[in-house]
């Protein structure tokens, strides 16, 4: 039985268990379900039996499958001739892969050595055996537990409380998965970053003014200074994000105000989806729009005014990123403005306020927490955005706030540090993790600030 089929069978079993449990509960309740008072309603008895039928079996199923491979592999390896078995670990790994591939039918078995062919056959046989045993064990366990729990059903059994306890535990387990994933990612980034800071001092990284992460592979190489001062990179990110927000916030907010307060129904129903399409354009497309259209335009425009504009400028990247972010700001602000109750508008209008007075003094303040949230979300989008900057802003880590020069950003540097062949423990690669850590911390701080503002505002006004 393949695992999928087994899961299906298990599902059917627990459905049956549900019915059995419920039937028994009805039987216990007696004539018309009234004779004996049950502590919990029959459906809860059914659910309890079903849950007990499914959960232990599922647990067994998961554990079995996660250890099966290792155990079967070990058993197969033990049967191999000594000459093959005594290889160094990485060669052995390749061998194991070969065996598995042959067993799965990906490789032609005829071309392989007889010993390996034999091992593949053994692998296949053992695994088949394991699957059969698994099916038997799971079904037996499910049925046994279900029968056992069914026999323990009593009118006084607090089935509802048990079921709800189990459900709560499930919910808790699901939420901890998210927490542990986050924790795992953070810890791995921190670990690599700490390795980096062993080589390059923390303060040098954080406050150094020079970024050129090319490490010399040979001592006599030129242009490989290996400086890891990240300030130019941070500054570039800040500059581009600032330009993006200068474009996105006014345009997004004003279009949101127009859409929700002034525009007619028809215009709104056409314009809102159109603006939201902007959010659906892949960032790569924005990237070449920035690199091929906006950047040359900015350069030519600069030439008209006698300004020397780099062909890859922060301005071009920032403006295009701003355009990309407009729908975020617009859509979220629009939602929050619409959520302001009509009664508040009526109150302002009835005092003789004009539309713009109502918007400025009543609606925007009331919608502000949401709008702030939208804007901060957009900022973290901007900070994390990669593709546009890679294509339009360049790689040069210039220490400048001049939007007409080429700059680089944290995300771009992470990308360039990690592509290409290099060892995974060189400072160059590890620097990517340090940058990632900083990015993570900054986004976290932004979110905390956003939450703080929103909460303070709420306390004041609700």
């Amino acid at each position, binding site marked *: 039985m393949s695992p999928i089929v087994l899961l299906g069978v298990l599902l059917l079993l627990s459905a049956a268990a549900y019915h059995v449990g419920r039937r028994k509960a009805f039987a216990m309740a007696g004539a018309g379900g009234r004779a004996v008072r049950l502590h919990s309603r029959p459906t809860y008895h059914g659910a309890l039996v079903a849950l007990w039928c499914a959960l232990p079996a599922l647990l067994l199923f998961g554990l079995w499958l996660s250890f099966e491979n290792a155990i079967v592999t070990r058993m197969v390896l033990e049967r191999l001739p000594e000459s093959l078995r005594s290889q160094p670990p990485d060669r052995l790994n390749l061998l194991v892969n070969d065996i598995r591939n042959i067993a799965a039918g990906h490789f032609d078995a005829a071309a392989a050595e007889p010993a390996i062919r034999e091992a593949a056959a053994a692998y296949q046989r053992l695994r088949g055996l394991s699957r059969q045993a698994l099916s038997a064990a799971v079904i037996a366990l499910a049925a046994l537990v279900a029968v056992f729990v069914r026999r323990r059903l009593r009118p006084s059994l607090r089935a509802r409380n048990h079921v709800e306890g189990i459900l709560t535990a499930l919910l808790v387990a699901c939420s901890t998965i998210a927490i542990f994933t986050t924790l795992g990612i953070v810890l791995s980034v921190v670990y690599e970053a700490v390795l980096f800071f062993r080589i390059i001092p923390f303060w040098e990284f954080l406050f150094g003014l020079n970024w050129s992460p090319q490490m010399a592979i040979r001592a006599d190489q030129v242009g490989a200074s290996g400086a890891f001062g990240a300030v130019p990179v941070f500054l570039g990110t800040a500059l581009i994000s600032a330009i993006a927000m200068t474009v996105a916030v006014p345009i997004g907010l004003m279009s949101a105000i127009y859409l929700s307060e002034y525009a007619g129904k028809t215009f709104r129903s056409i314009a809102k989806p159109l603006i939201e399409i902007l959010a659906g354009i892949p960032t790569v497309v924005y990237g070449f729009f920035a690199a091929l259209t906006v950047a040359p335009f900015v350069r030519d425009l600069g030439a008209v005014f006698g300004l020397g504009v780099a062909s890859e400028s922060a301005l071009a990247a920032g403006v295009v990123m701003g355009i990309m972010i407009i729908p975020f700001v617009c859509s979220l602000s629009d939602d929050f403005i619409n959520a302001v109750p009509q009664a508040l508008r009526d*109150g302002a*209008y*009835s*005092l003789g*306020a004009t539309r713009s007075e109502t918007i400025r003094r009543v609606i925007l303040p009331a919608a502000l927490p949401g709008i702030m949230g939208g804007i901060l979300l957009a900022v973290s989008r901007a900070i994390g955005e990669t593709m546009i900057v890679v294509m339009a802003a360049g790689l040069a880590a210039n220490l400048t706030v001049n939007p007409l020069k080429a700059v680089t950003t944290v995300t771009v540097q992470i990308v360039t540090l990690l592509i290409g062949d290099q060892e995974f423990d060189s400072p160059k690669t590890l620097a990517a993790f340090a940058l990632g850590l900083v990015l993570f911390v900054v986004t976290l701080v932004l979110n905390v600030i956003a939450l703080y503002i929103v909460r303070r505002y709420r306390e004041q006004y609700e």
Partner: protein
Amino acid sequence: MFTLTRVEEAMTKGTERERTTGEEPSAGGRPERESRETVGTVTVENPRMVCRGVNVFYGDKQAIRNVSIDIGRNEVLAMIGPSGCGKSTFIRCLNRMNDTIEGCRVTGEILLDGVNIYDRKVDVVPLRAQVGMVFQKPNPFPKSVYENVAYGPRIHGLARDRTELDRIVETALRKAGLWEEVKDRLNEPGTGLSGGQQQRLCIARTIAVNPEIILMDEPCSALDPIATSVIEDLIFELRTQYSICIVTHSMQQAARVSQRTAYFHLGDLIEVGPTERIFTNPRHPLTQDYITGRFG
């Protein structure tokens, strides 16, 4: 006290009556049926507002049928009637608050000092400053108590400086009977007050801009008897200069504060007359039923 069940009973009675008179089913957009004729004199001498043949539709549904009524100077007009009969709908027409409701259409004439307020040329902003409104549900702004009241005077530039603004705010709050309760918490959010306090805050907010006509939609429904009598005193005082329309479910209140009373029933204006006459000697059977609580 007139209980809600009785009002509802009165309504169902009304509907039954209509059915027995055999009305035609409605045809989209057109009046579902002919309006009932209003009993009593709708006109007054030298009126402030004049409504003639007012119909209000929500989409295809007609909520007000051919209502004509005058609002006099220095008079309090009470509007009574069972729940859902269109009192709020009608009173909102008087300062064009229905403009903000999608699908709401008003036909007929409403004149303020001889000018049709639904005329294209009329600007609703000064109109609403002139005809203020207190809503059925309190709707304070999410601002401080002070800012709630100061909002109107600010946008209309009624105060030259902060001290004058402070005075306006205090006077308005005093008149609404709220000053003593909030004078120490002027900077706290208006939405943090109790329901009745919020309602009085909205009243203060409305009178702070000195409207000449004040529309009050059940201003006392959330108030205790003491706060109610403060508001009624305010109405007495305001009447010396202004006109007031008040919607109320309390007959006693209508009898206490108003000079004229209008009885609405299912979108029709059934009867209008001097308050005393309406309460002592109603002419229309529907009015009688409603006033006396006698059904039959």
